[in-house]
């Protein structure tokens, strides 16, 4: 099984997010970057498939050199090869175009991408790759069983689950449930040592044209101070909602 996992490097979920240059650029100062959690579920599943059926796992990231520590971590976890497309991943379509191009030039049976990235939450890159390549795409997968070319998938839908049958090659969107949080891998010393000699290849983009342009970012309003009102004091609650919060 030849598996490709698309990896985003995202700010740690506990990071304090700020913007610079008139709210047009993300301020990465002091930010610790991690593997996008949705991608990490997919990477772990890829490792499990490789361990049970053999094959190899390649990871691909679109980004500049600052994403390489996160890529090196995926190699320490057990991925075999890493490929970096040397451009900033700002625009979803250009990101998808670059990844699709790499897939076209290298045959993969299974492509896994997080259902979305936890920073910009676009959630469209895997769907765009599938469209460009004409491959089936199933998003929000919470279970996957592979038997030869036959793949049984379970997809989370509003209030329930959808059971899907599909043939390889496919693209899936991964999330929690595909593997459990307790199954996520921490790089061990052997893995870290082996990652030193695993190839991390940098390729140039086929196009640097962006299709969208960010005008500015706005942060949500800061949460106000929480006031606790005694359960018996309904009149005080109504008074605060009416006169202070002015919502009724």
């Amino acid at each position, binding site marked *: 099984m030849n598996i490709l996992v698309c990896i985003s490097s995202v700010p740690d979920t506990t990071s304090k997010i700020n913007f610079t240059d008139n709210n047009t650029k993300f301020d990465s100062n002091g930010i610790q970057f991690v593997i996008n959690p949705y991608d990490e579920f997919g990477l772990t599943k890829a490792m499990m498939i490789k361990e049970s059926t053999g094959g190899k796992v390649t990871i691909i990231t679109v980004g500049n050199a600052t994403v*390489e*520590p996160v890529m*090196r971590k995926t190699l320490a976890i057990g991925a075999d090869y890493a490929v970096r497309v040397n451009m900033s991943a700002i625009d979803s379509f250009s990101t998808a175009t670059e990844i699709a191009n790499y897939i076209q030039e290298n045959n993969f049976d299974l492509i896994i991408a997080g259902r979305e990235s936890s920073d910009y939450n676009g959630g469209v890159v895997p769907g765009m790759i599938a469209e460009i390549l004409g491959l089936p795409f199933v998003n929000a997968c919470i279970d996957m069983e592979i038997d030869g070319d036959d793949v049984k998938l379970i997809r989370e839908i509003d209030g329930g689950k959808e059971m899907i049958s599909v043939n390889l090659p496919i693209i899936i969107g991964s999330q929690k449930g595909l593997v459990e949080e307790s199954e996520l891998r*921490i790089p*061990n*010393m052997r893995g*870290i*040592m082996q990652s*030193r000699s695993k190839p991390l290849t940098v390729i140039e983009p086929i196009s640097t044209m962006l299709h969208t342009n960010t005008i500015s970012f706005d942060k949500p309003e800061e949460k106000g101070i929480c006031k606790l009102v005694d359960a018996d004091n309904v009149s005080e609650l109504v008074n605060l909602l009416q006169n202070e919060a002015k919502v009724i």
Partner: protein
Amino acid sequence: MSQDLYQAPDYFLMDELLTEEHKLIRDAAREWVKREVSPIIEEACQKAEFPKQIIKGLGEIGGFGPYIPVEYGGAGLDQISYGLIMQELERGDSGIRSTSSVQSSLVMYPIWKYGSEEQKMKFLPKLATGEFIGCFGLTEPDHGSNPGGMVTNIKDMGDHYILNGAKMWISNSPFADVAVVWAKNEEGRIKGVLVERGMEGFSTPETHNKWSLRASATGELVFNNVKIPKDNILPNKDGLGAPLGCLDSARYGIAWGTIGTAMDCYDTALRYAKQRIQFGKPIASFQLQQKKLAEMITEITKAQLLTWRLGVLKNSGRATTAQISMCKRNNVDMALNIARQSRQILGAMGITGEYSIMRHMMNLESVITYEGTHDIHLLITGMDITGENAFK
């Protein structure tokens, strides 16, 4: 214990002094501690039980001899990597770091540096994975700060030695598979002896009722006419310098480790101070609490810089015993003071098992005594700068 919300303080952007691999190793250890140590450590301490189930994982993240060469089962890492692992383990608990640094610096190190090739191949790979656990016997009931006065001895019987004596305050002893024991031969020369569990006359009674390092097993080593094969003597170094060389490595690990406890206490106290409301506002807004917190982060930052520099010197083989002593002494004292100040910030909550602070504080009362007491380390610095010996 409540959920582990730890976020490591890095006030002077020390991460920029580390390589990407250092950070990968450090972060892996940090993640492992959050997942495997934090959820179980409070109960282990309350029950005074060493959590044996973590040994395999401890080996996998490089907790056992990470600087030992690859051909002997180690990871061949540098000294800063070793320090960072110790920092993260002790952030979890000093007892866990003790188990790890005893195995690494006091068992694997002497076998690697002073052992024969056969001894290295027999013990080091199994010690690196945690399949074997080791301990180190230097301190005796009547010889703590004065190890050279030891009475434990070996007698040459021709084709073997006979070992007699007793060692005390030995981390890992109750379940150790092998003990690196220091004993005098008939000429009064100190030799390293590998004593293996199961040897007749060798017993390891556990020390109970400790108020400190409760998640680490401590015990004695008792030798009653133990027959030691000649192949079990460390051949390549003897004299007091041999065990003291091991202590240099272990003290270096402690210097890093105690930064971890200090960072954990500071992080806990800072978060609590921002959330705890008194007189209508967070206690973090009061000057006396700010003084405590500001002094804590200052001391942590100073210790981080001092210890990173010591790591650079150790990597190039230039760190002296006196420099390591200064760093161990400074950092343990710094961590203990920060634990006490943090406990004050948390008020009554600080004494409960809901938070790690009191556990760290009680652990550090051992750490400030073992591997050279606070006073002895001062005298090492004193002797180094004056040339005068004030030990006796």
